[in-house]
């Protein structure tokens, strides 16, 4: 007789006492002393893994009480956004300073999720579907990292190295992200089955810089990391220069918008997965490219 056996259950160890530093210096000291402790801020990703026994860290390092991480400020032409700033605050407070980031934040989860999830958590999780990431890449943001003994600043485009992989060392924490203040219209658009509670099938940020006269793009959820569509950017910058459009902003020809969309789609490296096929993602990105650029341009002309 064959005895049926259920799936073998792992016997998971209990967790050690949670570390709850009250300031950044204590947090960095704790991170250095316990590099295997899991940093936890809003918990919107990591609590799911703990609830479902997918992850059982030895310890948790709770970052939710650190005042230094919880605010943002303007320093000259840059915003310095603390890692603990929630999506809800980005949604409500970025206004004209970083409109793309504000728009992206508004598409994340639900009010409950946006009230807890943080920009630092979104960056540290380094998912290609992290919605705060495309506007940060398009803006050329820098991630501020610190350990108990040193600090460094890494361009966001170099921070994420693959799906859920990044250059953060085991003794480092993200303290802030530095985002250049917008110098023109910004847009973020995301495709999913609903207007809320959706992990992006694909997404796109488009930023116009009316001072430097540049077009910047960043594609989410359609490559192992967030990628820029540099050919699309160069193409559109060429179109705008050639037409003298920055000085005399007239309507853009439909053919140029369509070509921009095609070049955006061509820059993606999507895969087939549960959320959508590679072919659908490419198609949708071409549409998003055309649409977001035309929205930006309408705003620039207004």
């Amino acid at each position, binding site marked *: 007789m064959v005895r049926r056996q259920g799936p073998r259950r792992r016997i998971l160890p209990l967790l050690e*006492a949670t570390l709850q530093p009250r300031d950044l210096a204590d947090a960095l000291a704790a991170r250095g002393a316990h590099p295997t402790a899991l940093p936890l801020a809003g918990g919107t990703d990591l609590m799911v893994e703990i609830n479902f026994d997918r992850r059982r860290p030895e310890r948790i390092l709770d970052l939710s009480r650190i005042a230094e991480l919880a605010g943002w400020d303007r320093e000259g032409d840059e915003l310095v956004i603390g890692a603990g700033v929630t999506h809800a605050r980005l949604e409500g407070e970025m206004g004209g300073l970083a409109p793309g980031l504000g728009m992206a934040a508004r598409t994340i*989860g639900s*009010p*409950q999720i946006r009230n*807890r999830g943080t920009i630092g958590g979104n960056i540290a999780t380094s998912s290609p579907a992290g919605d705060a990431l495309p506007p940060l890449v398009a803006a050329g943001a820098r991630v501020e990292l610190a350990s108990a003994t040193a600090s460094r600043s890494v361009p966001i485009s170099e921070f994420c190295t693959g799906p859920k992989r990044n250059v953060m060392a085991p003794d480092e924490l993200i303290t802030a992200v530095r985002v250049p203040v917008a110098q023109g219209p910004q847009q973020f658009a995301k495709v999913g089955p609903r207007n*809320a509670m959706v992990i992006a099938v694909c997404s796109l940020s488009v930023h116009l810089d009316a001072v430097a006269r540049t077009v910047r793009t960043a594609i989410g959820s359609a490559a192992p990391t967030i990628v820029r569509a540099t050919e699309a950017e160069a193409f559109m910058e060429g179109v705008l220069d050639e037409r003298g459009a920055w000085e005399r902003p007239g309507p853009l020809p439909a053919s140029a918008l369509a070509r921009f969309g095609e070049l955006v789609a061509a820059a993606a490296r999507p895969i087939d997965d549960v959320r959508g096929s590679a072919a659908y993602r490419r198609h949708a990105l071409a549409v998003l490219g055309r649409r977001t650029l035309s929205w930006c341009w309408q705003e620039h002309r207004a």
Partner: protein
Amino acid sequence: MKLILTVNGEIHEVESIWEGESLMHVLRERLALPGAKNACEQGECGSCSVMLDEVLVCSCLVLARQAQERSVVTVEGLAPPDDVGVVQQAFIETGAVQCGFCTPGFIMATEDLLRRSPAPDDAEIREALAGNLCRCTGYEKILDAVRLASARLGAMG
């Protein structure tokens, strides 16, 4: 280490908890407050919604330790025992309660919305309730309930 937190205005001490335990688990299993419902445990359904220091959260995604020395309000804390608040009454009258499982979460999300925006339009209501799932009502009665609660609270000034 003891967990000390305020729930519905009362200070509670929980002698020992598992370090990975969620706030939802503490509320339901250790403090006998079953209003916050246990459904998805991944922030998808909103049925465990509570206020943490006056901020609407999914209690399943809050590490219980993160609520140490903080203040939680659950659906049980919205009105005295055997009474209901304006939002709860509006849900009852409009037929927004069917099986009732999602109701506490919707009530908390509605309380949060009407505190921020006393006279929301329909788009605002939909966005505010986007994180709460209901499998019975088709949502129309819930929208009616929010409109009714908003009107009554407005009339009360």
